[in-house]
């Protein structure tokens, strides 16, 4: 195997075919920055149209073009729906500076994200509307098709469940940031970091230091998000890990060898075990929830991960779908509001995603297999 001589592989001289240059746009201001990279508000010079430019971060040299960007582009290229952010094109920056050449995704410009709106005085959305708008839930279907655990893929809310929902000034809601879908577990890595999930949605087994875990972790997160949607605010907003566990114990009861065999052997159990007895208060706290929702929540927020078997996970997810499709849709007045209902199912084994969204008249759900 021969190494190609340096300088011989000058791929730089090749133009990036098929993609326009970012110079077609004039950057107006930076409107966001996060794990995903920088986002700019920009104007297309030729048409004057305002767009959002999202620069693709390319930090990991060994990985090459980032997998998250590939997945996001792949998903967005396939989805054309009024409630999904429209990826207009991809542009490249001229490559004068050798390896700094950037790739930008060009999106339609959206005025707000939900987080920003909620903080803004005098906003034009009423609280119930916001609640309805947050009627998006991330529904993670784990291995339903293959029944063979390999890895887990979860669409993680970034800082909170809302910030990847964007709203324009007409009140239209769109899903964005599909690049956050990430794979955090696979069979090649039996020992996994236990700091994977945003604190508020992190299950007790991870907080107690378990490093061998399975799809149950996602079910916990889905449960948290589901409850948050019905409750109107996060249910376990812990500031740090001890407080997080405490909030969980306050609602779900303290774990012991009866309700969670083996819990005393988890690495940090002795450090974090509750000092006083705590009863499970889930049904009491959420007594205003729909009966079916509560039942479902009971299952999803079970402390012992072993009790959240695959079949249960599967059934829960289906119940969740049904709750939104059949139960909630027809009973309450969700139909009146389009863009209230959206979900993302991720069949992780082959990284097959599907997204479900309301049809234009909200009379049914459209499932997009990606």
């Amino acid at each position, binding site marked *: *195997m*021969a*190494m*190609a001589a340096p300088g*011989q*592989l000058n*791929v*730089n001289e090749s133009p*990036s*075919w*098929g993609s326009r240059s970012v110079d077609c746009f004039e950057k107006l201001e930076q409107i966001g920055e996060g794990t995903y990279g920088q986002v700019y508000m920009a104007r297309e010079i030729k048409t004057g149209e305002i767009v959002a430019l999202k620069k693709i971060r*390319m930090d990991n*040299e*060994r*990985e*090459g*073009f980032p*997998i998250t960007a*590939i*997945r996001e*582009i*792949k998903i967005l*290229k396939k989805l054309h729906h009024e409630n999904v952010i429209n990826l207009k094109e*991809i542009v*490249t920056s001229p490559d004068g500076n050798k*390896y700094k*050449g950037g*790739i930008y995704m060009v999106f339609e410009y959206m005025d707000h994200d939900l987080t920003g709106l909620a903080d803004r005085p005098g906003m034009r959305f009423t609280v119930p509307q916001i609640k309805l708008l947050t009627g998006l839930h991330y529904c993670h*279907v784990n291995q*339903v*098709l*293959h029944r063979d655990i390999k*890895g887990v*893929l979860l669409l993680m809310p970034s800082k909170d469940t809302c910030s990847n929902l964007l709203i324009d000034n007409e009140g239209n809601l769109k899903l964005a940031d599909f690049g956050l879908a990430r794979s955090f577990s*696979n*069979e*090649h890595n039996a020992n996994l970091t236990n700091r994977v999930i945003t604190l508020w949605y992190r299950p007790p087994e991870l907080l107690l230091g378990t490093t061998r875990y399975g799809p149950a972790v996602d079910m916990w997160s889905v449960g948290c998000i589901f409850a948050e949607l019905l409750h109107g605010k996060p249910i376990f907003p812990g500031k740090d890990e001890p407080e997080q566990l405490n909030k969980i114990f306050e609602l779900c009861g303290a774990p012991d060898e009866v309700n969670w065999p083996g819990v005393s052997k988890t690495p940090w159990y002795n450090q974090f075990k509750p000092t006083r007895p705590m009863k499970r208060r889930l049904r009491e706290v959420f007594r205003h929830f729909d009966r079916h929702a509560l039942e479902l929540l009971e299952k999803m927020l079970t402390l012992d991960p072993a009790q959240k078997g695959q079949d249960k996970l*599967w*059934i829960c997810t*289906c*119940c969740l*779908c*049904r709750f939104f*499709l*059949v139960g909630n*849709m027809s009973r309450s007045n969700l139909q009146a509001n389009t863009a209230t209902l959206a979900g993302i*199912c991720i069949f*992780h*084994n*082959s*990284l097959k995603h*599907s997204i*479900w969204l309301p049809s234009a008249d909200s009379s*049914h*759900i*459209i*499932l*997009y*297999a*990606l």
Partner: protein
Amino acid sequence: HFLNNSSPASPPFLLQSDMFSDEQELTSLLGKEHHNPLSTCLQTNPALDFARREAVEWMLKVNSHYSFSALTAVLSVNYFDRFLFSFRFQNDKPWMVQLAAVACLSIAAKVEETHVPFLIDLQQVDESRYLFEAKTIKKMEILVLSTLGWKMNPPTPLSFLDYFTRRLGSKDHLCWEFLSKS
């Protein structure tokens, strides 16, 4: 892909029927199919034909080494062929074809696989004539992707196979087993 909310069927109903609508899906698959004129090109250009053959063999070898899925293999060859036709290769740069093969395989793996090896590891499997640096491959990945118009979801023979097996009614585990082995 319509899913009506009317039927209060048992839970598995949702996911068995969800993505699978009838003829719409087939029409959409057929509509997205494009003829790649590469095959005619190859007949008149034996050097390119040879280079392609070598590259495809290499991609398949690496694919099986990492136990990537059949779809990954099909996608990588699809990307490679589409790129090969659209991009004018210079005969004095034979390494370009191999570099494109590495890039196409890497993109396909990222699209489809759960576990994606590093770019360097991807090249260690088989004795290849060249070893490319990750940043070089990244450049090529971008060149390939933009040449393909960033379209990574082509209909493949597997899409049709998948469609017909579902139409035949084998919605169960066997069907998936069959597909995963096909």
